[in-house]
């Protein structure tokens, strides 16, 4: 593992409050610097997030998951242009895996999103997982918040598309898009376990290759309602731009459904619960690693457990509630 490098030079010169002011004025450089601060877990990140948070909550967040190479980036590229033609500002956060051996990453999603060029209404950020399991990076949804505060109307999140990413993205995004593609030959057209429960919109991409009817029929047969919403199944050919209007319409219909039924608010609360817990866990991990009182208590408890004076469950309770050892 490599040693840490100092903060990027630019960020060091800008104060957090200036950066946030610039962000709220629509400055992309400020948005990028703030995302880096958060991603690098700089000391200023907490302050930055606290300042940004009141200006978020307007963007509709759409998560994309699906196996590697299925066409997620190509679809997002087309959707970005579609939404721009509908005069909406679009943000993208695209996640690729960090190599567990070197800690490095090649982030290639931008190759497929090159059409947007220098459009002022588009912001694309590539992100490596940096060891976070689940097909997303720890900072992914904080980056989404930055883009929300930058004034983006819709933000697309592309996951790594492997492992448990499906589950995590579905708890974070307002709308979850599951992308699949037809398999050739006699391959059984079945889905990975769990995938049928998490999508709001299912896309059968690469329809130009043919053989998509079996998969579409299979999906329609197996899908069940989530929050009272029966998932849409859309055929696309991203490289030709086919089915993109239908896909954008399906995304808009789902967004409207969430608003009309109150499920948007429900999803926000579910996400807040998750985020509070996650942050609490992170704070706890950091506290016990410190030379704080809690850190010393943690070390002592570890000695007790190793010497069989205390079991690990009791030790955990004692760590959290040192004065009330019986609390659950």
């Amino acid at each position, binding site marked *: 593992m490599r040693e840490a*490098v100092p903060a990027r030079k630019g960020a060091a010169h800008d104060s957090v409050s200036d950066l946030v002011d610039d962000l709220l004025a629509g400055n992309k450089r400020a948005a990028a610097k703030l995302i880096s601060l958060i991603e690098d877990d700089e000391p200023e990140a907490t302050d930055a997030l606290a300042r940004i948070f009141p200006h978020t909550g307007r963007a509709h967040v759409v998560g994309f998951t699906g196996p590697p190479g299925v066409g997620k980036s190509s679809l997002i590229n087309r959707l970005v242009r579609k939404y721009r033609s509908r005069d909406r500002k679009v943000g993208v956060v695209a996640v690729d895996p960090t190599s567990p051996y070197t800690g490095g990453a090649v982030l290639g999603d931008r190759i497929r999103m090159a059409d947007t060029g220098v459009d002022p209404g588009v912001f694309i950020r590539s992100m490596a997982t940096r060891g976070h399991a689940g097909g997303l990076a720890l900072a992914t949804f904080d980056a989404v918040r930055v883009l929300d505060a930058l004034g983006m109307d819709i933000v697309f999140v592309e996951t790594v598309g492997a492992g448990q990413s499906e589950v995590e993205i579905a708890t974070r995004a307002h709308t979850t898009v599951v992308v699949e593609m037809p398999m050739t030959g006699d391959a059984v057209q079945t889905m990975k376990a769990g995938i049928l429960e998490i999508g709001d919109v299912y896309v059968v991409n690469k329809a130009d290759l043919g053989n998509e009817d079996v998969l579409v029929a299979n999906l329609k047969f197996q899908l069940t309602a989530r929050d009272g919403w029966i998932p849409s199944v859309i055929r696309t050919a991203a490289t030709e731009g086919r089915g993109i209007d239908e896909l954008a319409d399906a995304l808009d219909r789902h967004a409207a459904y969430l608003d009309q039924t109150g499920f948007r608010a429900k999803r926000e609360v579910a996400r807040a619960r998750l985020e509070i817990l996650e942050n609490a866990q992170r704070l706890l991990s950091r506290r016990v690693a410190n030379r704080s009182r809690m850190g010393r208590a943690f070390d002592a408890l570890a000695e007790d457990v190793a010497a069989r004076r205390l079991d690990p469950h009791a030790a955990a309770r004692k760590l959290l509630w040192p004065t009330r050892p019986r609390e659950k």
Partner: protein
Amino acid sequence: MIPIAKKIRVLIAKPGLDGHDRGAKVVARALRDAGMEVIYTGLRQTPEDIVEAAIQEDVDAIGLSCLSGAHMTLFPEVVKLLKKRKSGDILVAGGGIIPEEDVPKLKKAGIKVVFGPGTPLRDIVAFFETAGKGA
């Protein structure tokens, strides 16, 4: 694995019209193997595209690869646009088939370093490592 903070981020881009990106890809992989995050943007990017991507990705440095012979206009243009966007702190390196006599001119135009064909990958990696450390 414990999540790692702070990474050197590098944009590898190919301005111009030539379609050869093998060299760019080899460099991208070498930088990844050295622990950096490499954003690869693909072929035929304009200087405007490259600068926009570099700003959004908040990279420490840009590696430009050009085999078409248009480096004398494309490379300095990237440096100029970066300065215009208050991002002159992003270092720019150039590579490709670049005649010896062009190197001083490119350096004068703000290209930090020029890698000719046959430059050991080790040297290229070392440059971006120092770039990331704010040198």
